[in-house]
């Protein structure tokens, strides 16, 4: 299966951290990139500008993906760059607390952003992918979910849910040349992981945190034509943490 000409990759939460690295890497692979952001307009513009300066195509698109109407508009706007045949469900939040004191609001907010919004966008993006007979959905999961981490019941549930959702959607659409895979990062140096327990480093066989570029390289592979037979899988990028 060949990637359609001028294909667009939509990356949610593309303004910073892993999302920004994914945007840059996909652009380098020839994707037109829709850089979605919720609050980091300036960062998203910087990411898009860097891509354009390198001769690529990119556009920052602000949208709160938790709003169903905004999600629909986001897909439509991204489609103006080119057919959206790659969706990277990267946007995510954390609201940590021990389960005993985890509030309803923090439970719901994390599930909504990290899981429900990803499903909603996947459902919307699949329409075009099925017609194109080519599609790549890459969920950014986490080693947390398959593995426990005290204080992150909401995050773990959402990220484990992403893996499960991705596997099921994958088997539904595989025969149309569409793949749905999950990249599961371990400890990656980003704004979001700043402040996490430093003792975690000792548990990582590689004895170092990963970088957003480590994750972006795996996303780029799963988005590529070369990965057409890789489906419903979870690729851990964690320095061996999940072993």
């Amino acid at each position, binding site marked *: 299966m060949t990637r359609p000409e001028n294909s667009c990759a939509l990356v949610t939460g593309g303004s910073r951290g892993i999302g920004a690295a994914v945007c840059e890497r996909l652009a380098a692979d020839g994707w037109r990139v829709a850089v979605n952001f919720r609050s980091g307009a300036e960062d998203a513009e910087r990411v898009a500008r860097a891509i354009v300066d390198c001769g690529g195509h990119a556009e920052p698109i602000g949208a709160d993906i938790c709003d169903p109407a905004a999600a629909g508009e986001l897909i439509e706007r991204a489609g103006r760059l080119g057919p959206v045949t790659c969706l990277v469900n990267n946007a995510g939040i954390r609201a940590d607390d021990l389960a005993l004191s985890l509030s309803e609001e923090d439970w719901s907010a994390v599930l909504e952003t990290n899981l429900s919004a990803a499903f909603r966008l996947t459902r919307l993006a699949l*329409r075009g992918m*099925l*017609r194109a007979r080519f599609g790549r959905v890459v969920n950014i999961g986490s080693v947390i979910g398959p593995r426990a981490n005290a204080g992150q019941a909401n995050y773990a549930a959402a990220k484990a849910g992403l893996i499960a959702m991705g596997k099921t959607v994958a088997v*539904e*659409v595989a*025969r*149309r040349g569409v793949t749905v895979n999950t990249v599961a990062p371990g400890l990656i140096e980003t704004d979001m992981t700043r402040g996490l327990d430093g003792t975690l480093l000792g548990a990582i066989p590689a004895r170092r945190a990963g970088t957003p570029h480590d994750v972006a390289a795996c996303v780029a592979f799963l988005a590529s034509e070369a990965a057409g037979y890789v489906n419903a899988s979870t690729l851990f990028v964690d320095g061996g943490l999940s072993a």
Partner: protein
Amino acid sequence: MQDEMTDTTVTDVVTDALVGFGCEREEITRAATFESLDIDSLDLAELAQVIEERFGVVLKGSDVVTLKTLGDLIDLIVARA
């Protein structure tokens, strides 16, 4: 812009969609069964989206699961207009 819905236009849209799914045009008749055309649940879900976009008629999986022939489907779409 949605198309005017008549039995003919619905049949044309359904036929074109099924050809896109790989069905042979000459085998697409009102009497043809989904099974004989090798139309699966994903085909029907895609077809439902085409119908919604072209005619504004929403078909759910539960609507089509009991249908046997293309004629049944076309009649259902026209009846929902």
